[in-house]
């Protein structure tokens, strides 16, 4: 580089390139905010008049963000254009000035050379030479030339620096504009900018997530190397590679899009068939596809569960919901189709595959169950197919042999298990009307049990019992409708085997015994929540044989009573059938009871009934109204007698061996007696002196009915037992009846015991409240004077006998109802 170029450096840069950049950025600035979305910002869209709802609002909000960010982008790019144009202009100007400076430099250099040359000439002047001054003049002239040149160079350097000043300033201005643009972006690199913008654009982020998910699944399908319709065991490991990524709803949707229902069913069938073909190879063979099933089941359950689509923007959720509805329809339509070729029963249906996926999904993502739309379409279709089909009850899997991949799979059980914890969806399913008009819950609690008679306890029963506990124990109309339908189906299923004179009664009852067991306690609980229903059915003067046909589409078993919604049973026969089943809770047919008390279901119901009757009786006794008091005694006696006799008849029916009968019955009766106890809350609300007599009364009645029926016992045994029982009972009932009257103060004013004691001096038999203490607490002297007083009080004679009479009346009602079936 020459001295000049070094001193007067040329400003580097590509002006034309900078101009081109500026013009391109100008194009960006003027175009980026001119899209339709950015211009309109979600306002005035053509379809806005016909599109409403959350998705539209989300889209409009998204458009507003797009418009805003586009406008900001354009606004921050525009200054850059000006900055770069200014920089290019400054560069051009700097170069022009440097060019001039260099010209001056060249001119100065020439001038310097000429001055030096002139100095040499001056040194050779003859006159100066003659005078001896030539050398001095030459030196002086040369020095002058050098100084002038040096001054010029210095001047040029200064002017060069000055010439570059505007260029530097222009560069700084341009840089500032670019930095302004960068500062407006939500991130310090491309990834951060993209993420920051998408955070403001949830709808777009959702679309990108779905696109990414589809790309992921597309890659999976491509790696399989063959069409999805051919997938089976070889693809299991590939499916399993998705792992936890399938918990992303977008990935789950993409997977279910790639594997439509019919192909999904086929894959599940092939995997199970493969497992079956390796049944002799140990546990590994059974679990070899668990990871694949887990992935498929998770995707299946997630897509059926919109309530668990976390982290979705509203528009994405709406789009996914729209897809899901179509998907559910496909699942329902294709579910009843038989998958695979002819084989041993049971047939493998599409619903069978779906049940397998529901089970695996439930285990993989606990707490996530199918939502309302799935239950209303697919779930209902599963139940209807089960009702119409002839492949229920499902065959249990046979060890070391493989008959069908559907063996041992109960679709209904899987469905019911999957909707645990989702009472709304479960209620909708249980109340849905099947093709024959009955609600699903009535079919499940009744007819389906009869179809499985003689088989092992159905897998669906536990799930149904749990669902009933979740959906039918409330006091609202929906809960009562479910409870009523369940009890009606349960009772209807239990009725035929109990028919008197039916030679197959015991066999029928035995065949149903295992089917009913899982529901007995929950049925007792449902009835216990509506104790009025027992008396209403018992006291029903019409006692119809069938529900009115006009109400076939309604729920006649749920009625609005004075205290809110309550349930009704069809008639006394159906009530007796239900009670009879409750009496067989945990009973082991053919063997005498042993160990812990049985029949907790019946005890649970009895406690509720006694509690309800106790409240009514206490109120009636306190009122002093003779009619109310009589009515309550009738009600208490008949309800108690009906319940116990219904249970007893049922137990006797199912017990075939007469020799074991007496012992069985005694144990049965004792166990019920032992478990009858009033809830603590009720004890607190009843007069203390009334609680013990009331309970004792019921217990005594239970024992009396249970022990004294000589028509069943062998004569000798029955005679001995009933004589002893009656002797005890008569005494117990007399005392308990007395205590009841004492607690209620059920006597005329003229018969007041305190006045009588004052008139007949001696030991008092009354407590601080002025009423007789319980008989068991009296001393002999007190009891003697108490008996003397009661001889003049009629209630002490009529109440115990009335209760006993009504208990027997209730027992007779059971026998009449059963005989009338």
């Amino acid at each position, binding site marked *: 580089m020459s001295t000049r170029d070094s001193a007067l450096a040329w*400003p580097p*840069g*590509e002006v034309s*390139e*900078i101009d*081109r*950049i500026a013009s*391109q*950025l100008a*194009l*960006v600035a003027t*175009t*980026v905010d001119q*899209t*339709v*979305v950015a211009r309109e910002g*979600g306002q005035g*869209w*053509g*379809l*806005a008049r*016909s*599109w*409403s709802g959350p*998705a539209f609002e989300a*889209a409009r909000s*998204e*458009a507003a*963000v*797009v418009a805003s*960010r*586009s406008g900001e*982008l354009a606004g921050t790019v525009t200054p*850059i254009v000006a900055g770069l144009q200014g920089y290019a202009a400054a*560069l051009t100007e700097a170069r022009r000035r440097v060019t001039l400076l260099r010209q001056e430099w060249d001119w100065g250099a020439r001038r310097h050379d000429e001055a030096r040359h002139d100095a040499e000439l001056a040194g050779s002047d003859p006159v100066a030479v003659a005078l001896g001054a030539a050398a001095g003049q030459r030196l002086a002239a040369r020095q002058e030339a050098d100084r002038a040149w040096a001054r010029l160079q210095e001047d040029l350097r200064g002017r060069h620096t000055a010439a570059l000043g505007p260029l*530097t300033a222009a*560069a*700084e201005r341009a*840089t500032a504009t670019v*930095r302004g*643009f*960068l500062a407006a*972006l939500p*991130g310090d*690199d*491309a990834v951060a*900018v*993209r993420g920051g*913008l*998408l955070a403001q*654009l949830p*709808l*777009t982020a959702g*679309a*990108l997530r779905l696109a990414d998910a589809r790309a992921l699944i597309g890659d999976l399908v491509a790696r399989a190397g063959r069409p999805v319709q051919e997938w089976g065991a070889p693809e299991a490991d590939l499916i399993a590679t998705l792992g936890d990524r399938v918990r992303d709803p977008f990935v789950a949707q993409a997977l279910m899009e790639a594997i439509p229902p019919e192909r999904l069913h086929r894959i599940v069938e092939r995997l199970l068939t493969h497992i079956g073909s390796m049944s002799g190879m140990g546990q590994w063979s059974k679990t070899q596809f668990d990871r694949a099933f887990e992935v498929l089941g998770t995707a299946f359950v997630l897509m059926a569960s919109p309530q668990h689509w976390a982290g979705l923007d509203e*528009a994405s959720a*709406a*789009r996914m919901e*729209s*897809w899901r509805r179509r998907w559910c329809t496909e699942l329902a339509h294709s579910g009843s189709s038989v998958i695979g070729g002819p084989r041993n029963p049971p047939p493998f249906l599409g619903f069978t595959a779906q049940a397998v996926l529901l089970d695996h999904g439930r285990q993989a993502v606990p707490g996530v169950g199918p939502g309302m739309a799935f239950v209303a379409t697919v779930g209902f279709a599963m139940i209807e197919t089960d009702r119409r089909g002839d492949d229920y009850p499902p065959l249990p899997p046979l060890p070391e042999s493989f008959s069908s991949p559907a063996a041992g799979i109960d679709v209904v059980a899987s469905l019911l298990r999957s909707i645990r914890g989702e009472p709304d969806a479960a209620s909708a399913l249980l109340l849905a009307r099947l093709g024959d008009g009955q609600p699903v819950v009535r079919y499940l609690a009744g007819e389906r049990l009869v179809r499985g008679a003689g088989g092992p306890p159905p897998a669906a029963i536990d799930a149904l019992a749990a669902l009933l506990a979740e959906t039918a124990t409330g006091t609202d109309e929906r809960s009562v409708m479910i409870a009523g339908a369940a009890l009606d189906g349960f009772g209807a299923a239990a009725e035929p085997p109990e028919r008197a004179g039916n030679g197959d009664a015991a066999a029928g009852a035995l065949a149903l015994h295992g089917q009913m067991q899982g529901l007995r306690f929950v049925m007792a609980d449902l009835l216990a929540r509506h104790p009025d229903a027992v008396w209403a059915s018992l006291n029903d003067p019409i006692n119809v044989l069938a529900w009115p046909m006009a109400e076939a589409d309604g729920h006649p078993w749920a009625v609005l009573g004075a205290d809110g919604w309550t349930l009704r049973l069809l008639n006394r026969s159906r009530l007796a059938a239900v009670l009879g089943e409750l009496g067989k809770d945990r009973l082991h047919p053919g063997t005498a009871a042993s160990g812990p008390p049985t029949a907790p279901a019946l005890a649970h119901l009895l406690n509720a009934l006694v509690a309800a009757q106790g409240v009514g009786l206490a109120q009636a006794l306190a009122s002093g109204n003779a009619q109310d008091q009589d009515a309550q005694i009738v009600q208490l006696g008949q309800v108690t007698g009906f319940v116990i006799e219904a249970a007893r008849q049922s137990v006797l029916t199912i017990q075939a061996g007469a020799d074991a009968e007496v012992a069985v019955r005694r144990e049965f009766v004792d166990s019920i007696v032992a478990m009858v106890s009033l809830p603590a809350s009720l004890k607190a609300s009843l007069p203390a002196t009334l609680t013990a007599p009331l309970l004792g009364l019921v217990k005594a009645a239970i024992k009396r009915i249970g022990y004294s029926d000589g028509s069943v016992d062998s004569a000798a045994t029955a005679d001995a037992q009933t004589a002893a029982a009656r002797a005890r009972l008569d005494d117990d009932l007399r005392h308990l009846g007395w205590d009841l009257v004492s607690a209620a103060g059920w006597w005329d004013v003229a018969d007041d015991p305190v006045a009588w004691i004052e008139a007949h001096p001696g030991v008092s038999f009354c407590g601080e409240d002025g009423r007789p203490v319980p008989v068991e607490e009296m001393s002999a002297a007190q009891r003697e004077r108490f008996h003397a007083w009661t001889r003049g009080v009629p209630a002490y004679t009529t109440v115990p006998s009335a209760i006993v009479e009504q208990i027997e009346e209730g027992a007779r009602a059971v026998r009449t109802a059963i005989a009338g079936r």
Partner: protein
Amino acid sequence: MLVHVEPDDLAAAGHRMSGDGPRLRALAQLISGCGVAGRRACPGAPALGQALAALGERGSAAISTLAVANGHVGRGAG
């Protein structure tokens, strides 16, 4: 009266805006090129060159994201 219409059903009506997405993606490429060229064109102003390079990278990311958003919102809005 407002009538609810499913977002997917509106997809077909989105063609009115179908050109915006490609245009924005072209702009994203353009600004990316500016970043690459900027550093080369301004050797005398290294700070400016670096800033332009960052502009190309981040601006491209921003505009391509807006391109996707335009396309997606446009499909929904018709």
